[in-house]
């Protein structure tokens, strides 16, 4: 800077005054970052999806839509696609409901609330792979403490095969997703709740509204944009996640809990057919794009409010 402002004549523009230049300087790192970590892999994925590249034969040969056609004829692919939507839909719903309830607890004023807040946020701060391994033990077919508790309560006679039986597998995967994403949703919704002026709730109380009416006529409509953001974050993070499924069930013996991300991994890396894996993963893209647009729109709605 000193070179540019060497002479102390008043009114001299230094480099630091040039907004256009500064904007570029400050934006550059993120541009580099996005290009290197998002744009390049994305372009690579598209290129690979139209190729016959495998782990054993990395030479690039154009094969057109062949990989996609193979996908559409593969029942496991359809199973994975259906599961992805099912997991995402059910998890999102539960995440939002539990997130809202937790958010109400987080904003409430009571003794020891910092401890509750800490515990609530714990699942979110643990790496997914680690916490999922913990769940692997919790849901073990022989030593599961959940089964033990249920047995002691007399609710079941024999251990449940949480990670081996198709329906229970799904339940387990969804439960772990909900468990790990609810804190995030709760924090997002809490931010929305805190932003509501307190006197609105008080006015509603004086106007004779009970707890549920205040919740559904005042709080929920006013936090709707924030709830939408929480729902979409939950959806995207469930949609793209393969760790939970992969660690818990490896997709299930009959691919019963396979999802797109895990199936793409199994085919592309496990099976070595990189082109096929890339084409499976690309199916995630249009849906994520739609979700991203929805997030941005609801954020804009929030600003208008």
């Amino acid at each position, binding site marked *: 800077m000193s070179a540019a402002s060497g002479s102390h004549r008043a009114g001299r523009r230094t480099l630091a005054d040039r907004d256009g230049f500064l904007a570029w300087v400050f934006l550059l790192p993120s541009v580099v970052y996005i290009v290197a970590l998002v744009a390049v892999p994305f372009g690579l994925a598209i290129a690979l999806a139209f190729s016959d590249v495998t782990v054993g034969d990395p030479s690039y040969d154009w094969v057109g839509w062949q990989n996609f056609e193979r996908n559409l004829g593969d029942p496991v692919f359809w199973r994975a696609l259906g599961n992805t939507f099912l997991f995402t839909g059910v998890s999102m719903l539960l995440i939002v409901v539990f997130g809202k309830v937790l958010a109400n607890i987080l904003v409430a004023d009571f003794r020891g609330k910092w401890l509750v807040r800490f515990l609530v946020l714990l699942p979110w701060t643990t790496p997914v792979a680690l916490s999922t391994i913990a769940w692997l033990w919790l849901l073990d077919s022989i030593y599961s403490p959940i089964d033990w508790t249920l047995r002691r309560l007399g609710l079941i006679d024999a251990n449940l095969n949480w990670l081996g039986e198709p329906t229970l597998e799904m339940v387990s995967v969804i439960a772990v997703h909900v468990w790990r994403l609810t804190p995030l949703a709760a924090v997002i919704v809490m931010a929305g709740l805190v932003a509501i002026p307190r006197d609105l709730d008080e006015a*509603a109380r004086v106007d*004779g509204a009970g707890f549920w009416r205040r919740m559904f006529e005042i709080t929920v409509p006013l936090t709707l944009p924030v709830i939408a953001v929480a729902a979409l974050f939950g959806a995207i993070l469930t949609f793209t996640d393969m760790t939970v499924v992969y660690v818990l069930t490896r997709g299930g013996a009959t691919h019963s809990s396979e999802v797109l991300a895990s199936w793409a991994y199994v085919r592309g890396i496990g099976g070595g057919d990189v082109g096929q894996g890339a084409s499976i993963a690309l199916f995630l893209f249009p849906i994520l794009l739609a979700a991203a647009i929805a997030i941005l729109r609801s954020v804009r709605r929030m600003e208008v409010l």
Partner: protein
Amino acid sequence: MANPTGKAAAVEVRNLVKEYDGGRVRAVDGVSLRSEEGEYLVLLGPSGCGKTTLLRTIAGLEQPTGGEVLIGGNVVNGLPPRARKIAMVFQSYALYPHKTVEANIVFPLKAEGMKRARRAERARWAAELLGIGGLLDRKPRQLSGGERQRVALARALVRQPLVFLLDEPLSNLDAKLRATARDELKRFQQEVGTTTVYVTHDQTEAMGLGDRIAVLDKGRLRQVGRPMDVYDDPADTFVATFIGSPPMNLVPRDGRLVGFRPEHLLPAEVVPAADRVGVRLAVDRLEYLSGDRHVYGTASGIGEPTRVIARLPATVLTPIEAGRTYGFAVRGEKLRFFDAASGERAEPERIESPS
């Protein structure tokens, strides 16, 4: 307090105490007050004296630390706000921003479980009464401050509550709108005849609106009475100086304070000779305000020399100049006496004019 009219008190508080932060802040400190049926009671006091706290305790938004709140003759301590049949207008109006004006107004009726057709009818009635019939489809953010205030009033009024509680509803309006809104508020209350407790720190508002005024200071009730009584017969020096602008002059004399209103300190020749208490006024400044002359100076002869203000109406033509001393006087019956130590009202005494 005795009940002079024999009618049921719409709102009454008995020895009400409200503490915050485990007793470190006493926002309301033993207030006993009752408002008669249909009365317009104004709570007046400086900022932080506990007006809002008192109102919120009546509404049930705060639980009292001690004492009782009665509405319609029943103790309502511990009852939630919705069981109290009160309507409150917040300083911020607290309109529901996502609801239309109509939905805002019918909200209390919906909570009551009233039928839809009946609700719409009541909403239209309230809206017409307040002259906002044309705004029913708008959202609150599309309204001006004055319109918002009327929507808030309409929302309070549809339910026909036992009591209206208003917390500085005019403070968000500009000075001109405030005057017309005050006028409307008074007319509207006379029309519906509902008991109203109105909070303000603005004495003009209090004098203009109130059937009675309750003056609060530091959480304590200083005086309750008609505007005229509070103005003419203040119970202590706080009320004497808080009400009136310019405030009452207080002149120390033998361990007491002699008080008189600026408009009663007049050139000697316009005060009837029979009841004249003379004051020598060394004038140092003059202001000409909306037709009146405000004369600032040092008064002597009635007590220790003290700075005072005289307010001469336009009808008094005596020429006055800064830097000179004039013979002023107050009528003896207009003098008020206070104990210098406690500030409480004291027995009147005769003051002989210096010859």
